[in-house]
């Protein structure tokens, strides 16, 4: 079994397949902890984890906070709207001040790509990227992969389709990176304006036909149209997008019998996914959320312990 030596988790490019396997194995154990009556273990007693969110978040923040708490770490939340950031303090200054209070890990989300990297280069605390701009969202990809493996047994050889706003999606980029590491064939699909040029270099195929993609895929992962990142007009209208690229029961008739449908959330029902599909038999959206806590527990546990040398066996 591989050993974990990283101090930060910025993206999946920096971690090996073996390290991801270790995260999965650890997460499997932590899933059991969350199913107990007393959902708490003392593994990170005395550690402090700060959630530094410069962008709105429900799932990821709650998930990280629960993960930290179930490991007995203390957590604090800093949201940009209610902090000194709105008074003009720079991101790095804010982070440095937080670190000066002796915190062990900072979970950061920011609308600009690379902010977690800047923090990692300048601080001693462990930095966990909870989404930076359009670049990376490693824990989301890890939980997606973990869920796929749990449901379908294996990732190798699977056809995974990511559908929708690929251009603005850090989830898509992290998933392409992680899934291809495990031998999946990833296809991206969406309106041409939302498929970035050069996405093939990350290892994904491009197919503009939703019909073809639905027919051949084992996993369908529609993404939310990110209205907050649509200042330019990429789409004629949301309604037109829903008609062309939204997944509904009708279109799913052509899908494989054991197809699974995932969504990183939040879902815009009736746009990328019809309500009946989101709640339907193929959907594993809520399993993703459950697994998210276990994956984040695993990441926190591994990151906050790694100091370099392997521990002795008991």
């Amino acid at each position, binding site marked *: 079994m591989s050993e974990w030596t990283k101090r930060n988790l910025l993206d999946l490019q920096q971690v090996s397949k073996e390290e991801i396997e270790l995260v999965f194995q650890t997460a499997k154990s932590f899933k059991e902890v969350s199913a107990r009556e007393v959902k708490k*273990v003392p593994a990170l007693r005395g550690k402090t984890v700060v959630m530094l969110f410069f962008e709105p978040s429900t799932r990821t923040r709650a998930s990280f906070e629960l993960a930290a708490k179930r490991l007995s770490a203390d957590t604090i939340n800093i949201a940009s709207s209610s902090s000194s950031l709105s008074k003009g303090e720079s991101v790095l200054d804010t982070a440095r001040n937080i670190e000066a209070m002796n915190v062990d890990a900072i979970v950061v989300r920011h609308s600009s790509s690379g902010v977690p990297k800047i923090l990692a280069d300048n601080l001693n605390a462990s930095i966990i990227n909870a989404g930076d701009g359009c670049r990376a969202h490693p824990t989301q990809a890890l939980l997606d992969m973990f869920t796929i493996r749990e449901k379908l047994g294996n990732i190798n050889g699977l056809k995974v389709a990511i559908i929708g706003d690929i251009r603005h999606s850090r989830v898509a980029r992290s998933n392409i990176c992680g899934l291809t590491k495990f031998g999946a064939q990833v296809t991206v699909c969406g309106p041409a304006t939302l498929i970035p040029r050069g996405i093939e270099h990350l290892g994904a195929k491009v197919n503009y036909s939703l019909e073809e993609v639905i027919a051949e895929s084992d996993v369908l992962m529609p993404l939310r149209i990110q209205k907050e990142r649509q200042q330019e007009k990429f789409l004629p209208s949301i309604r037109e997008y829903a008609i062309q690229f939204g997944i509904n029961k009708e279109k799913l008739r052509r899908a494989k019998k054991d197809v699974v449908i995932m969504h990183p959330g939040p879902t815009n029902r009736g746009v990328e996914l019809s309500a009946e599909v989101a709640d339907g038999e193929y959907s594993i959206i809520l399993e993703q959320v459950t697994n998210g806590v276990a994956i984040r527990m695993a990441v926190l546990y591994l990151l906050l*312990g790694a100091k370099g040398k392997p521990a002795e066996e008991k």
Partner: protein
Amino acid sequence: MTVSKIMDKEGIQRVLMRIAHEILEKNKGTKDLCIVGIRTRGAILAERVNACIKQIEGAEVPFGILDITLYRDDLTTVDMQPIVRETLIKFDITDKKIVLVDDVLFTGRTIRSALDALIDFGRPANIQLAVLIDRGHRELPVRPDYVGKNIPTSIDQNVKVILEESDKQEDQVIVKGRKSK
């Protein structure tokens, strides 16, 4: 380095059978009895003790596996996080008589962690401790209820229980290193 074998396959089997008898004697049968092994080798031994109990009484008792990694008292000082494995306790331990099984009893710290971990699952009627080897050098007030064999050791010796299931070698117990005078 000297290596001496202090127990062979048959020896281990006899000891486990004796412990099974002792457990049944003390608990007056299998009522409310549960067996929980500490990963990795304690779990294997626990399974074997359970098999012995079945042989004697004709009934198996609920069996669980405990991973104590998350409850270790040295987690903040080790350099690398140890690998966490699954804890499998699928029954309610409240008001049950739990026999905790481990391979070697040494400092007692593992058992301390195991007690903490067990209590998180409920409030058992009592917890008893069975170990294959007691090698002394306790650092905590822990006392076993069932002992396979007492082996006086020096602190720098290493006692290793080798089991077919985990080590792919024939069962045996060996002591490594010389006893300091």
